[in-house]
């Protein structure tokens, strides 16, 4: 059976290990076999490190991909930032022999080589393409009946679409289908596809974006926000508390990583997937619905 090398990245490893744990436990039930390898570094991040020096960014990413090539399996990512860096580098190096040659001169110094033999995909894409929504649904023992999940795609699962090739970037369906597969109700709102704004240096811009997205979720009366990226999570969980204080408002929109929702649907306890660790309390989802009963 096909095996996958997980690339959890730094944010999930150090700051949100309960997301890593949720991914590991849930995909195992679906039959996705993960093979851990040693030696990965930061992807490196697509905002600050790419801004620093794109060639260095490609090189470090290519080293990470080369390690997985040596082990002989595709990489699955669980953070949209890592997905962006590794997918973009993988495609650029596959398609541009000149660039690949330049990067390989650098990698040769440590006895490594990028060959272009594997794929990099976000875990949700692998669930859809290699397993299917039905296989996900088949692992559900406690469907999240009636739970209204406001979908937040974030940018780098879908865009740039010529790199990601996951879904229509303007009319995606993958997250909606994965939410349906666990018995919950995906909710669209005005700002479903808006960026979290994390990369902007002027803080006022992401402030307004985050408040607009959360406001748009309040309008449609969803129970929580569902997303697939730890950076977006940071912006909407801790970021919600900070911006609430700054603007003297209480937003109270629980934010949940998709694999935590999947874990609940597979019968895991809320603490088992780390829901007790969120800054914005998630208890209201249990009060309003039969989830967790």
């Amino acid at each position: 059976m096909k095996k996958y090398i997980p690339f959890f990245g730094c944010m999930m490893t150090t700051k949100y290990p309960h997301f890593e744990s949720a991914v590991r436990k849930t995909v195992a039930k679906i039959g996705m076999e993960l093979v851990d390898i040693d030696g990965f570094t930061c992807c490196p991040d697509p905002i600050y490190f790419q801004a620093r020096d794109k060639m260095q960014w490609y090189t470090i990413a290519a080293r990470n991909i080369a390690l997985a090539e040596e082990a002989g399996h595709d990489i699955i990512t669980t953070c949209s930032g890592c997905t962006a860096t590794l997918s973009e580098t993988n495609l650029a190096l596959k398609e541009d022999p000149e660039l690949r040659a330049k990067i390989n001169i650098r990698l040769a110094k440590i006895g490594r080589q990028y060959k272009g033999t594997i794929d990099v995909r976000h875990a949700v894409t692998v669930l859809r393409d290699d397993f299917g929504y039905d296989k996900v649904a088949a692992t559900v023992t406690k469907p999240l009946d009636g739970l209204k999940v406001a979908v937040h795609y974030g940018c780098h699962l879908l865009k740039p679409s010529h790199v990601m090739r996951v879904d229509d970037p303007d009319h995606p369906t993958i997250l909606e289908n994965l939410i349906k597969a666990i018995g919950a109700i995906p909710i669209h709102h005005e700002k479903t596809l808006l960026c979290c704004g994390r990369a902007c240096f002027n803080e006022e811009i992401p402030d307004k974006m985050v408040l607009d997205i959360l406001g748009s979720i309040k309008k449609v009366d969803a129970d929580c926000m569902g997303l697939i990226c730890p950076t977006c999570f940071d912006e909407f969980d801790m970021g919600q508390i900070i911006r609430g204080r700054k603007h003297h408002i209480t937003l109270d929109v629980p934010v949940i990583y998709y694999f935590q929702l999947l874990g609940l649907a597979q019968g895991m306890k809320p603490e088992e997937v780390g829901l007790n660790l969120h800054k914005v309390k998630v208890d209201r989802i249990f009060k309003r619905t039969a989830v967790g009963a």
Partner: protein
Amino acid sequence: MAEAAKQSAIEKHKLNFAFRDRLNSVAEGFRHNYCYQCGACVADCPASMYSKGFNPRLIILKALLGFEDELIRADSEIWNCTNCYTCSERCPQEVRPVDVIIAMKNICVAEGKAPALVRNISDTVLTDGITTRKTSVTERRRQELGLSPVKDYPIDEIAKILKD
């Protein structure tokens, strides 16, 4: 207008094609040449929606005309790009404005004209191998969850591959 002020206004908006060459030499920077100023990148740009000063079409125009002083600086508007890639989706010319903006950020860093935050954050990849460092609770939490401890990152390998 006083003669000196007039002169400086002219200087400020003098075409500077040397900048075009500079931008062409950075990864993905050459794409700015394809721009025909249609403005398709603007309408759905979230940074434009939420900040009046940000306009990807004008950023590319300034690059074409070589308004280097406005673009290559730590407080340049380019630093407010969200990196969302919507402009790349809309662009009919494959300019990929976000990639051109990243190329200009690379020039800012090379010339010491980037916000300090860029170097502060990206330096941790070289010193620690990661961007988000461990906190005091990381290992305890990983242990509670049954996850393996965080391994040392091979920063010696990183140091060797950064340059040609």
